[in-house]
């Protein structure tokens, strides 16, 4: 019985951890959207900044991946 409750909690937690994906989606969309709006105003400067954009994407995506990690830990390690 107690194990069942723990497992239920782990599954609910894994599901809740997936809401972190939404945060990562907002973050990545924000980075790329702002990059595009800047790039369309000054296209000549955009080429040199794509690397910076990808670094920004990677940093904001990392936190979404952390929520995925939490979900995996709850599913398989608890």
């Amino acid at each position, binding site marked *: 019985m107690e194990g069942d409750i723990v497992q239920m909690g782990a599954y609910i937690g894994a599901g809740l951890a997936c809401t972190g994906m939404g945060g990562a989606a907002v973050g990545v969309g924000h980075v790329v959207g702002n990059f595009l709006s800047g790039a369309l105003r000054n296209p000549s400067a955009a080429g*040199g900044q794509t*690397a910076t954009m*990808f*670094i920004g994407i*990677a940093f904001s*995506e*990392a936190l979404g*991946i*952390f929520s*995925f990690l939490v979900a995996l830990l709850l599913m398989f390690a608890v």
Partner: protein
Amino acid sequence: MATETQSADAAAEGSSLVFHPMDQFIVKPLFSDGPVGMFTITNVTLWMALTVVAIIALLVLATSKRAVVPSRGQSIAELAYGFVYTMVEDVAGKDGVKYFPMIMTLFMFIVMANMLGLLPGAFTTTSHIAVTAVMAMAVFLFVTILGFWKNGLGFLSVFWISSAPLVLRPILALIEVISYFVRPVSHSIRLAGNMMAGHAVIKVFAAFAALLAISPFAILAITAIYALELLVAFIQAYVFAILTCVYLKDALHPHH
């Protein structure tokens, strides 16, 4: 035969999926049924070896003729070399070019492992945190040791942001220290998580393809996600390499 009975059982029970989407990540020994030890040859070993062979074929065999008008293989190798070289030069600066071979090695290994992993039936070695963590820890230790070696204790100024107001600096220093030590975690989990998630999604849609009503949609979805995964396979290798360059730049020039 075994899979047929399994799927029949699953269908009879009304189970959700015909096969488990995470089954593809199981490490299996190739030549025996025994436990996986330190030197057991597993499917991970096989696909890593194939990755290295593919890189050698691309970078050594394809460029061995060195024609003025390059063949397809040679132009791909030249493109990859030029791509990574400009990336290192742009992000890590002129002093960073000395460490170009390391970043080229990492980039080629990851991009080849990701691409080979997309072959149907292949094993994606980079989807395992054990594999990516070794690379990320190597980068982290290398960058930290290099930073202290080049700058001595001055390397600690990477945590002290001199452009911020003085009141905020201790707080920012604390945050910087935490984010510095999270680097190997995020560096490795990003690659492994992206690969694992993408392949699991493909497998989930592959399981949906067994249901007649939605199978056309599922097959279209697999095709679309496969195209996305090709992009992700390249972008994640690029991101891994470019973050290595960023860390390298921090080690070479710690002053903000």
